């Protein structure tokens, strides 16, 4: 009896207020408090400067980089990526496309950047660039092209990767993101086999993560998903990461992009 009154008293403590709301309520409230001044803005400003800055062995800016809508066109590019690029003969996501531009225009070593740990050196610059480029399409709706055979093929490969079960815990992407109403602790998990809604899932990354104070691009998001799945390490800008982005992005057709969003 005494024990139970203790439990009741504990439950009334303000520190436990989150237990009385649904998980989603708490997270939404927390995000609303933080979104009023999303630190992603700082990364966006840095990214815009980096885009225009003459850098690398060729002392050139990225202003002639073709993100799919023509050389130098940034607005609207993000909601149409990944897509097929004729010059590289590859389907590329934003980050692998930036690697191409940094290499061809600025003379930077794409392979070395791909091997650089997240948040360090040129990878830190990459985060700022994806923050700004995605922000330039904020409010637009996801509309990845699927006309090219290679884009259709990548969707099919991405779907297969999404459902591929492996590792010591039998996880696939679909284990957490294959149906509605799943969560990890307080985090609601979007169903990525369909359009999960405006500003959710694929339409919310890149994002600023409050818990770590970092700006994560989609590559880093996928990398940490695979870490938690107990999979081996996916190479930066590797084909599986791009195929998954095509699968999620095409499924999210019509979802409004809020990237760079703010996350717990």
């Amino acid at each position: 009896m005494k024990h139970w009154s203790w439990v009741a008293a504990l439950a009334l403590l303000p520190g436990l207020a989150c237990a009385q709301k649904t998980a989603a309520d708490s997270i939404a409230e927390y995000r609303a408090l933080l979104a009023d001044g999303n630190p992603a803005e700082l990364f966006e400003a840095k990214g815009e400067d980096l885009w225009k800055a003459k850098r690398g062995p060729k002392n050139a800016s990225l202003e002639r980089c073709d993100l799919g809508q023509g050389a130098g066109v940034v607005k609207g590019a993000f909601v149409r990526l990944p897509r097929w690029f004729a010059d590289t003969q590859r389907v590329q996501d934003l980050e692998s496309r930036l690697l191409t531009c940094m290499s061809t225009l600025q003379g930077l070593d794409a392979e070395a950047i791909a091997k650089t740990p997240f948040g360090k050196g040129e990878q830190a610059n990459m985060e700022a660039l994806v923050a700004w480029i995605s922000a330039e399409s904020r409010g637009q709706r996801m509309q990845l092209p699927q006309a090219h055979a290679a884009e259709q093929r990548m969707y099919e490969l991405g779907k297969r990767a999404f459902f591929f079960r492996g590792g010591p815990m039998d996880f696939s992407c679909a284990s957490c993101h294959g149906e509605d109403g799943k969560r990890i602790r307080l985090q609601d998990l979007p169903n990525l086999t369909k359009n999960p809604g405006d500003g959710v899932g694929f339409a919310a990354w890149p994002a600023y993560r409050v818990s770590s104070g970092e700006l994560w691009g989609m590559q880093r998001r996928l990398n940490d998903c695979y870490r938690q799945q107990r999979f081996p390490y996916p190479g930066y800008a590797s084909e599986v990461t791009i195929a998954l982005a095509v699968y999620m992005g095409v499924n999210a057709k019509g979802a409004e992009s809020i990237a760079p969003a703010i996350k717990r």
Partner: protein
Amino acid sequence: MNKRFVWAAVAALALGAAGCASLPGQPTAAELDAQALAMLKASFRDEGIATTKRLEQDLGQQACSAETAPPEGVAKRVEAEALASIKWPAGGQYLGDWREGEKLAQNGRGMTWTDKSAAPTATTATRSARKRCPSAPSAPASTTTARSAA
């Protein structure tokens, strides 16, 4: 009669082929399956304890890697294999220390490439409990402590 039968067979074969094969230049479903496996193999590398060996699927993983559930016969085989692989507790001791079991269940960490050991870990329970309540990061009260107080 005979001739007509042959024609019908040819027509059926052609229809069947058209139903399975895709347009010229487009890969078939089986080709895409093979390409997806090759893509996975080429995309992942070893990191710490998480080696590419983890991509080698057992029967259950292979059968449950599609949007749809496996056919009943396959599902039965997966079930039988999984049941056969269960190691029952020695000496008929079925109930162990449930607190240790709960720690494991509430934790969910371990075995990733940032972990040193390939064993699931239950040593960071307090850390994960604190993270569960992000609106009160400094409050020591958590579901775990509330339960142990009771």
